[in-house]
């Protein structure tokens, strides 16, 4: 009985999170187009619904009804597997993200945490592990398409993801040293009490933060690091031969990944759901029971800040070249991240001397 309630509650949480994430993905495509058009002096989508807000639905329907083409000479098994391999790791990472305060609720005698699907003690490691699997989707998709452009895109993606994953891993070690835990919930909890307690400012993880954000953009294959896709060079890179829902899966994976890395950045560096003030505003107003609402809002604001940053970068920067990207990753970001780890550990060792 207890197990069933636990499983039921987990399922409800999963369903909630999935709905929110997928809706965000859908409307993120619209948001991106709107933000870009605002920066580029144009209107963006205006036809479907008022101000084009129903555009994602129209796009989704279009993709759903499109003919699904498997090119002759393609390896159909890997060709079909690749989109799934892309989208599943992107969605599965949301399991350990804390969206709100670490409260506990009791339902029929079972204690559950309503704002995180599961609080495993290796949360961040789990995300990194799954994010690496996402790269397989790109590589296999590129290889299985039997297209030279796809192959080149896949190869570029492989090299890029490997080198930048390393930087992500090193960039967050500083935070892990400070918090002393790999659990996302613990990391978020450790930053309570105002923005000067956030690891970005309080832990002086500015270098780590910059390395993380740059690497995250590269990890999600977005401009200026969208070499694997590079529509002006490789047509659409590893996605060239994909159409219909398979293409939509890749598309979803890209946007879900964007949200995921934004969530991680918010939790690790900006205190997650924590208010930038010592207390929640709603507590001052006299509704201490409702402070979770504000916490969720803070979290959302932080995530959307990063998403906006993604769009902003896309509107501003040209694309790097393959060799420049590798040089930047290995010769600039990696030493920076390593130095950050070194300095953080030394400082932490001396500061925390009993």
């Amino acid at each position, binding site marked *: 009985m207890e197990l069933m309630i636990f499983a039921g509650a987990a399922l409800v949480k999963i369903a909630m999170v999935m709905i929110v994430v997928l809706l965000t993905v859908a409307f993120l495509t619209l948001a991106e187009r709107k933000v*870009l058009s605002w*920066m*580029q*002096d*144009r209107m963006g989508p205006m036809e479907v619904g008022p101000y084009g807000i129903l555009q994602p639905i129209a796009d989704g329907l279009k993709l759903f009804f499109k003919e699904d083409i498997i090119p*002759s*000479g393609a390896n159909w098994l890997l060709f079909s597997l690749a989109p799934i391999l892309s989208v599943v790791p992107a969605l599965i990472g949301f399991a350990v993200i804390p969206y709100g305060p670490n409260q506990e609720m009791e339902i029929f005698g079972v204690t559950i945490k309503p704002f995180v699907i599961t609080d495993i003690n290796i949360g961040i490691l789990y995300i990194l592990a799954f994010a690496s699997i996402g790269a397989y989707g790109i590589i296999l998709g590129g290889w299985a398409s*039997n297209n*030279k*452009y796809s192959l*080149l895109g896949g190869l570029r993606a492989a090299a890029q993801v490997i080198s930048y994953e390393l930087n992500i891993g090193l960039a967050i070690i500083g935070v892990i040293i400070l918090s002393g835990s790999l659990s996302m919930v613990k990391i978020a909890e450790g930053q309570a009490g105002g923005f000067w307690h956030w690891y970005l400012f309080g832990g002086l993880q500015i270098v780590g933060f910059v390395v993380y954000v740059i690497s995250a953009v590269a990890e999600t294959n977005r*401009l*200026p690091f*969208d*070499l694997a896709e*590079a*529509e*002006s*060079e*490789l*047509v659409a890179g590893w996605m060239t031969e994909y159409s219909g829902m398979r293409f939509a899966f890749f598309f979803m994976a890209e946007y879900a990944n964007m949200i995921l890395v934004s969530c991680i950045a918010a939790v690790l560096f900006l205190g997650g759901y924590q208010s930038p003030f010592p207390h929640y505003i709603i507590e001052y107003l006299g509704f201490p029971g409702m402070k979770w609402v504000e916490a969720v809002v803070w979290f959302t604001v932080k995530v959307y800040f990063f998403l906006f940053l993604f769009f902003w970068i*896309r*509107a*501003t*920067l*040209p*694309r*790097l*070249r*393959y*060799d*420049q990207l590798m040089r930047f990753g290995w010769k600039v970001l990696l030493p920076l991240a390593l130095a950050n780890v070194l300095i953080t550990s030394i400082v932490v060792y001396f500061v925390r001397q009993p």
Partner: protein
Amino acid sequence: MHTLLAKLKDRFPDAVLAVREEGPYKDLVAQVKAPAVPDIARFLRDDGEMSFDMLSDICSVDYPEDEDRFEVIYLLKSLPHNHRLRMKARLPEDAPVIPTVTPIWRGANFLEREVYDMMGIRFEGHPDLRRILMPEDYEEGFPLRKDFPVEGKGWRTTFPFLPKLDEPAVASSAEEVPAEQQRPFLIESETESNGDKPVRRQEELLLNMGPQHPATHGVLRVVLELEGERIVKATPDLGYLHRGVEKLSEALTYQQIIPHTDRLDYVCSMLNNYAFVRAVEKLLELTIPPRAEYIRTTVAEMQRIIGHLFWLGTQALDIGAMTVFFWTFREREVLLDMFEKLCGARLTLNYYRVGGVDSDFTPDLVQKMQAFLDTFPAHIAEYDELLRTNRIWLSRTKNVAVLSAPDAINFGATGPVLRGSGVAYDVRKAEPYGAYDKVEWEVPVGKNGDTYDRYWVRMEEMKQSSRIIRQCLQQLPEGPIIADAPQIVPPPKANVMRDMQSHIHHFIIFTLGFKTPKGETYCASEGAKGELGFFIVSDGGARPYRMKIRAPSFVHLGVFDHMARGYLIADVVTIFGTYDVVMGEVDR
């Protein structure tokens, strides 16, 4: 006689058959024996007094009645001395063979291929003599010969090579392209030491880029031989947009050709119109009223700004900076609206007339132009802010596709490509026309010949263009906008509708065209891409006997392989962008 011609005749008393100064503008012409062409060419290039370092174009004319049927005409340009020379050689019908000049001017590679393709003249010693504009397996002859049938081939539906709707699709074979078809695109294999027959390394990948590719600026196809991502050899394959403008124009009167020139470089129609009407006017020895000259110059510079804005947007988009593209189109829109006010069209304009222009500026338009000029520098600064201060942009353009000045000249590159390499050659300065010698402006010149320098040159040219427009608008004289030449210029439309005399006059000009004096002329103008030249051979009729268009983009694509080797795939799109190729002009 001109000293150069005398010197040439002295140096080659046998090989040079005749030298003369032709036409009202005293064009230097040398008639030479075909087998001696390479020797004379080398002398013309290397001799200090001659230094014809640039081969503008190679043209071929077919005279079926003559004993030596074909004539090959080399249009030479000397940048240090700023003079031109036409070297002609006659070839008999049964053996149309002439030695190649590719070792002397590397730019001749594409030009000779075109002559071969169009006229069937073989160039002995040419490294890669294949068809260039027509399909590789085209077997119906050589289109620009006068005996080529010009009738249609019946209904389109009966063409055997078009697939029918009810036919089953041809099953595609997953097999590799046969080695024979791959051969032209592969670099000459080196003989390895372990055997005497050539062995190819197997790691190279042949990548077909285009004609349907988002970044090849139209229907350009390039076959890349790759080693990893590095380019070993790049072979442009042209002709997907070949419409035979040169052949078409042989059947059209001079006024009727003007709209066809719009479709050459369709981004800068006005400049094509301008170049063409100038060539016809040169043939006719027509002088243009000053107001018309100023209007022409103004409009040409507006069009140049449009062309450069278009280039900037697409080049930035190719490298991934998408915002610049929309910003440049915002300004382009303003200028296109002005064109619409001026002549009713936005893209394929037909505004220039032989003898002047079609309609006058209205005060409203002048005011709009001035308002545009006031805001334009701020907009250029805006683009610059996004690009010139951007480290990624700098690293993508600096030291990419470097073209040294001697190479650029040798390949016949002109326009911003040549100026980016540090050669201050601009037709507007070297051979001034319009009102360019009456206004103050400068020729921006790059230093290193890389993509960044060409970017910088074009950005500066936009500023210079707006400077020219501003001065033209200030100096704009009063007067007629079209020459007073009743033989050539039709009467005003208002009169045509009122009195019979004008009506008949109008009718005659538009049905019969106007006659031009017998002769040849080459007239170069500065297009947005480079030197745009029209070479017209007139037999005294109302239609050109032969018209050759020197399209700068076509010549620039001849440099492509030279510039792309050793760079990465990502740089290929940068190189496309840096030439500012427009396929309408390349394929004609």
